[in-house]
């Protein structure tokens, strides 16, 4: 039995004997990716708990379990953790780290020590973000937290005036932003410098294209929000006046600067997810992907146009009419490359030998949920409709169909797809499929009623509501219960798979990209024994069988 990356590792400094310290100091991209996954999903469940608390509170009109102020903190906690701690590092931090270097035939990322440092910077950010959770007091038998109550967007001037501890959250968002920038920088250099010989940009797997486009957004959008948060801090403590209307500052400017980052950030989340989709669809249709170049270039187009559409978050907050029209117009444009991708995926499946394994089920489920999420987004890109729907549950439902039903579902798809690669074992297919159906049903039950409630005027972020909205909240509640049960079950199945799943071969899915041509499963410390010369396209199938084959020295033998 050959040694895998679980048995040996390189460290940032020193050669510690203990396994624990070896994990803490590791610079191996695969181990760092796993550590990101563990931390991120821990926080994911914290945020799910906050969301479930809100669902319980909203089961009936009026106050049930928590006070209105605590409710504000709960949705802030949910937003901050989900956005900054979970979904922004998200797929790039986990699969960008684990899989991307394998896909391009690299031994590691370009700056492995920086990668290690970035991970710990992320951990510091997490600690700072949640530090104020532990700053609570119990008076008169009720628990009060000092956590920020601004929502994850920190809109001025409220964020400058609130008594809650918004500072630690701002600082944390800045640190996490730095970590995100450094991740993107590392990946950009890796993709430019470390591709296997012969692999030009149009021979890269599409997931790498997704990571590449994402990395540009991480690099060039994050600094803007970073400096915005610094300005907000300076405003709060030194009164520089930039966002304070009393001194002539413009709070809407804060919104501009905030969304200059935070809108591209949603493309930063979805692009690597689309990359996962583009890996799974050809592998489980046993067919070369349709329109490789259009998918690759549409990733770049989404990233490029995505920079220029932030203003659609401000249709109701005071912009010139001309700017509104420009932003609305540009926003419609993003739908075009996204639509191209969808047609390409569906065309790939046409006449393919479709294998309905768990990763494929997740991908197909996402085609439905993300289509709803994406198209409802086009409806609120229209200025007139947006005035009505902006601050309602309609937008909440749109956002969660796109982010949860798009990014997180594809994240789960990726977990099921690369699970045998990472652990060398297989989870129980039957149980994993059951988890998928539970989650899919729970998801739609949870979010679809919100479209209707929002359309009829249920405002978002409200602690209380009119009795006529009760039915929607109650359906949502039962959907949430099913969804959370499904989540717990899915992770139970995966953990069972890690502990006593059946060992697999290096390429259980008959996939074609380089990460499935490793010498052993799980992979050895320095990945491919020899680096192949890449003179083939990433998804070559002939009669449902992979075309490209290698001998043990990674020389082509087909």
């Amino acid at each position, binding site marked *: 039995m050959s040694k895998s990356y679980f048995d040996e590792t390189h460290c940032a400094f020193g050669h510690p004997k203990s396994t624990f310290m070896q994990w803490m100091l590791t610079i191996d991209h695969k181990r760092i990716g796993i550590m990101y996954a563990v931390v991120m999903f821990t926080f994911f469940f914290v945020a799910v708990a906050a969301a479930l608390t809100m669902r319980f509170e909203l089961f009936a009109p009026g106050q049930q379990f928590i006070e209105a102020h605590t409710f504000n903190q709960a949705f802030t906690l949910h937003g901050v953790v989900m956005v900054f701690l979970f979904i922004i590092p998200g797929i790039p931090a986990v699969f960008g780290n684990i899989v991307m270097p394998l896909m391009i035939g690299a031994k590691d990322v370009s700056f492995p020590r920086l990668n290690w440092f970035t991970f710990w910077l992320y951990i510091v950010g997490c600690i700072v973000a949640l530090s104020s959770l532990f700053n609570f007091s119990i008076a008169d038998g009720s628990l009060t937290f000092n956590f920020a109550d601004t929502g994850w967007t920190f809109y001025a001037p409220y964020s400058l005036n609130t008594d809650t501890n918004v500072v630690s959250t701002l600082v944390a968002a800045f640190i996490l932003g730095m970590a995100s920038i450094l991740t993107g920088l590392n990946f950009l250099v890796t993709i*430019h410098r470390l591709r296997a010989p012969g692999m030009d940009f149009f021979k890269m797997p599409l997931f790498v294209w997704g990571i590449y486009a994402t990395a540009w957004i991480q690099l*060039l959008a994050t600094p803007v929000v970073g400096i915005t948060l610094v300005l907000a801090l300076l405003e709060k403590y030194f009164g520089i006046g930039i966002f304070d209307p009393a001194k*002539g500052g413009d709070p809407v400017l804060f919104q*501009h600067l905030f969304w200059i980052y935070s809108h591209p950030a949603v493309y930063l989340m979805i692009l690597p997810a689309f990359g996962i989709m583009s890996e799974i669809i050809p592998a489980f249709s046993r067919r070369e992907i349709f329109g490789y170049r259009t998918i690759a270039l549409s990733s770049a187009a989404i990233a490029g146009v995505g920079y220029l559409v932030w203003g659609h978050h401000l249709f109701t907050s005071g912009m*010139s009419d*001309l*700017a509104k029209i*420009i932003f609305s117009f540009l926003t419609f444009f993003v739908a075009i490359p996204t639509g191209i991708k969808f047609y390409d995926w569906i065309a790939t499946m046409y006449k393919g030998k479709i294998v309905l394994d768990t990763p494929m089920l997740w991908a197909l489920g996402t085609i439905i949920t993300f289509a709803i999420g994406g198209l409802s987004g086009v409806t609120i890109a229209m200025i007139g409709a947006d005035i009505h729907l902006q601050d309602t549950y309609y937008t909440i439902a749109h956002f969660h169909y796109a982010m949860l039903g798009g990014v997180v579902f594809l994240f789960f798809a990726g977990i099921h797809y690369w699970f045998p690669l990472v652990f060398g074992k297989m989870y129980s297919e039957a149980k994993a499929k059951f988890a998928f159906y539970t989650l899919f049903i729970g998801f739609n039950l949870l979010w679809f009623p919100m479209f209707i409630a929002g359309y009829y005027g249920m405002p978002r972020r409200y602690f209380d509501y009119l009795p006529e909205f009760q039915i929607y909240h109650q359906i949502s509640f039962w959907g949430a219960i099913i969804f959370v049960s499904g989540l717990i079950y899915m992770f139970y199945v995966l953990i069972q798979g890690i502990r006593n799943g059946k060992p697999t071969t290096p390429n259980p899915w008959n996939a074609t990209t380089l990460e499935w041509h490793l010498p052993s499963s799980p992979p050895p410390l320095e990945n491919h024994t020899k680096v192949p010369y890449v003179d083939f396209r990433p998804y070559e199938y002939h009669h449902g069988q992979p075309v490209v084959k290698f001998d043990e020295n990674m020389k082509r033998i087909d």
Partner: protein
Amino acid sequence: MVTNYKAEKGGYYKVLFGLLALTALTFIQPTMFLPDMTFGLQMLIGTVKAWIILMYYMHLKGETLIGWTVIFAVFIVVFFFAIVIIDVNNFQYADVSHITSPAK
């Protein structure tokens, strides 16, 4: 990588004198010529200086890939500026807003 110090030193001094001359121009411009266009001219001189620094001190000359990344980043910044200026100049409530026309 090892280069000839004497041969390249001259270039650095030439650039220095160019930059010093432009700095002098920065100083005399507002009082000597075109005072109505001070802001635009100052930014123009700044841009020329920046270009010289980028090309010669930062060795951007001949770097295709890095050059394009710089152009891309600068384009995005310029777009932000354009949008903001369009927005400010077309804001329909500018006359009544507390921020844009404060009570004197």
